[in-house]
């Protein structure tokens, strides 16, 4: 029964949301300890489901998790420092339809938010070179509250997007590998070698490069490329050939190894079949911007640091056209924009993010988790109704150590099915769908 637990859940991302308060470095050889605990609750208010999927109806389903992390940061000398964090979170799989509530239960999940060691050489105030090894967070777009971050999240083929309720106290799910970072003046260049630990096939290496430019106060641009799975541990799995058997290579949740295109006659009879092979590997490109008129024009001292900031990000998920599913590059370009509304420091953040992604493939990522580059196909679902996404986020830190957050969104939330029935279906797939969630975090 346990082996059937093929449930992906973005709530796992939330398990690490308390780690950012640990961002401070130890200034002396002493070890610094930090901790955090949180409780999150929310509800799916509207979720489209077909009659076929009625058993997986998420409308009015509650979401909840609670957990704690603690971390030790040590500064070994002027060059070396390390971090180690441990955590556990109490979560539940989606309850789904009320009649399924009998198989609904919470359970504990341990996790390692960070386990890293960093070597830093500081050449001058504006010039620094560092290398990080281990398990660490990569957040190249700190403006993004929920949508975006396409370069390091999700896949290439299929181009299913991933979003998450991270907030300013959050970091991305830990990346395992190595990172070199060089900052010189107005430029910063990061190169990240990532070992795949999330999705099958495991342990493929991806290489990401990110250039950040800050030409003027309040203005920032970022450019990146991610050579996703450019070193495969087993090429047969990452780029399956025509002899691939999906049931053997990918298990029951795999979608398929290749695309079969049939040529039909007027009566619908198959005249010929063409097998199109592909790969999970591919190249992502990313560009982003950040504009802060306060800093550019010296405005608004009464405003908080993040207020009035306009930001955006776009990506190309796969530069190469493959078969019929990936034949139009314009449908592989997600674009998001966000704006932090002014609250005059009443809130720490009030932001709205909007995303457009014209993919006509299913956003179901269950197959991708198990190694299929072929998207899921469900003739009952109109994939054109989920092009627009949005997210409204609110954050407020009280007394320096308690943070309250809320999110109302139509995004890429996946509650993952229930019990031993796994899906990668997004919860909000039509414009009418939405959910809300709140979180209280205590951290020190």
């Amino acid at each position, binding site marked *: *029964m*346990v082996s059937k*637990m*093929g*449930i*992906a*859940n973005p709530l*796992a991302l939330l*398990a690490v949301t308390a780690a950012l308060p640990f961002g401070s470095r130890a200034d002396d050889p002493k070890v*610094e*300890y*930090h*901790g*955090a*605990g*949180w*409780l999150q*609750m929310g509800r799916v208010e509207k979720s489209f489901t077909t009659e076929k999927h009625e058993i997986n109806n998420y409308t*009015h389903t*509650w979401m*909840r998790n*609670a*957990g*704690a*992390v*603690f971390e030790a940061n040590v500064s070994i000398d002027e060059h070396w420092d390390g971090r180690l964090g*441990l*955590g*556990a*979170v*109490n*979560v*539940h*799989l989606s*309850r789904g339809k*009320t*009649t399924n*509530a*009998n*198989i*609904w*239960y*919470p*359970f*504990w*999940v*341990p*996790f390692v938010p960070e386990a890293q060691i960093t070597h830093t050489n500081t050449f001058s105030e504006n010039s620094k070179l560092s290398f990080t090894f281990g398990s660490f967070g990569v957040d190249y777009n700190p403006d993004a509250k929920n949508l975006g971050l396409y370069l390091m999240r999700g896949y290439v083929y299929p181009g299913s997007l991933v979003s998450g309720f991270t907030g300013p106290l959050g970091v991305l799910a*830990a990346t395992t590998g190595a990172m070199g970072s060089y900052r010189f003046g107005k430029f910063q260049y990061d190169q990240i070698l990532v070992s795949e630990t*999330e*999705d099958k096939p495991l342990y493929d290496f991806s290489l990401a490069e990110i250039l950040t430019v800050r030409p003027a106060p309040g203005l920032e641009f970022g450019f990146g490329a991610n050579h996703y799975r450019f070193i495969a541990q087993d090429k047969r799995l990452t780029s399956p050939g025509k002899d691939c058997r999906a049931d053997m290579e990918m298990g029951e949740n795999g979608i398929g190894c290749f695309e079969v295109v049939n040529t039909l006659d007027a009566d619908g009879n198959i005249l010929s079949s063409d097998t199109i092979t592909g790969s999970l590997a591919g190249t992502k490109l990313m560009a982003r911007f950040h504009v802060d008129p306060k800093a550019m024009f010296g405005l608004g001292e009464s405003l908080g640091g993040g207020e009035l900031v306009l930001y955006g990000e776009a990506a190309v998920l796969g530069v190469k056209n493959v078969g019929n599913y990936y034949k139009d590059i314009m449908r592989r370009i997600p674009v998001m924009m966000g704006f932090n509304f002014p609250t005059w420091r009443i809130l720490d953040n009030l932001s709205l993010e909007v995303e457009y992604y014209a993919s006509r493939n299913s956003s179901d990522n269950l197959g991708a*988790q198990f190694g299929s580059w072929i998207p899921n196909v469900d003739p009952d679902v109109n994939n054109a109704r989920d092009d627009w996404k949005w997210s409204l986020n609110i954050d407020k830190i009280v*007394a*320096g*150590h308690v943070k309250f957050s809320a999110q109302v969104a139509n995004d890429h939330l996946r509650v*993952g099915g229930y*019990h031993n029935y796994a899906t990668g279906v997004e919860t909000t797939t039509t414009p009418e769908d939405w959910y809300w969630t709140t979180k*209280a975090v*205590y951290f*020190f």
Partner: protein
Amino acid sequence: MKFSKLPLPRFSAPPALFLAAVAGLFQPRAEEGVFEVGGAGWIQYGRVGNSSDPENGTDLDGNSIYSSGAQLSVQARISERVDGVTGIGVAYGHTLPSAITKNGGYAPAYLAPYVAEAYFTAHFIKEENSGFFLRGGLFPYSYNPEVRNLGSYLLRGPLYPGVLLSGFEERNGFAVASMVGVQLHNRSGSFQQDLIVNSETDFFPYFDLSVAYVANCNFSSAFRLGGGVNFYHLIPITDSITSGKWDVGHSTFVDSIGANPDGTPINDSTLIGFSGTKLMVNAAFDPKLLFGGPGILGAEDLKIYGEIALLGLDNGPAYKKLYGDYLHRMPMMIGLNLPMFGFLDRLAFETEWYGSPVKDDLAGFNHTASSHQNALPLKDANGKYINYKRDNWKWSLYGSRIVQGHVRISFQVANDHFRPGIYTGDGDNNAPGSQALMTTPKDWYTMFKVAYFF
């Protein structure tokens, strides 16, 4: 990290048994702006002396159960008025096999991570004779600190059916985190009161909010009297589940109250939900303090304490038939710390009477693929409600001693509500059984634990 990759624990309930009370051992008190780390590790071994329930499978007598674990906590004193604690741990253990297994006679072992505590406390008034604070998160709370095993009825265990919990240094019996929510505490002189909003994480239906109020008053340094009310599952997450409407078939009690002239029965149907009200009073008396202090006795010696609760005020005909009258919904316990003259820190003997007609089994709350949870008592194979009439009396002898300030040795011999989880043999992939093993006066078991803490 994704759930699809996670080795989910096969056992959902028994890990709670092993969230042992070690966190209560270390209570680091950091100075302002300082973080302090505490840790503990323990091993625990137990053995069933006698268990009479034939429904538990083959003879469990002599079967042993083992667990161990470790945890770390960090406490931060942010300011004079704000502090917080975070602790996580991992427990290792297994349930009790009721049949010969391939694992050397043991049930398969598991590792269970958990959060030992994760909460903040904001003090609004913090004076010698008065206090007022707000606490939030996963925090410990015990209104009856003398209790070692039995009792604590107000805040642990379900309401309908009124199945009791007990255990050897389990989190619910000690000042170890068991509440998820908020606590508003007020202390004024000898009087203190708490308002607690708790999110349900132990029993189905999960995440409903219960609201409890507890008050305690020390009438002298020697005598304490307390009471409380718990509006259990007052705020449901999904009303239809908590009320039983989601599955009327399993949640309805049908009682034949007569017959029509044609002989057809006249039935009275009552929908039974999980929510209701618990009441509790408790008291503690320390006679040493009337005679000038402990003298050669230990600080805990000779204390007498007790607790009575009423589990459910609903008193319609259906409730009376299912759960008995008020008297049979009233667990009551009394305890005495025997004089040990410093040889042990505590040797507590507790006894309990609970005349409930309900079988001492939590199976009705377990998740299964084939049945729906409901608040009705369990039935036997013939459809009759099970009532073990020989399990009304419980007792427990608990002893502990701290050695060198950092090692605690403790033991327990008891006939209580011990439910280690039953593993029925190879291939058993169900949630472990949750029936109490001690069902007759001649049943008993032992537990022994060594914990190191700093």
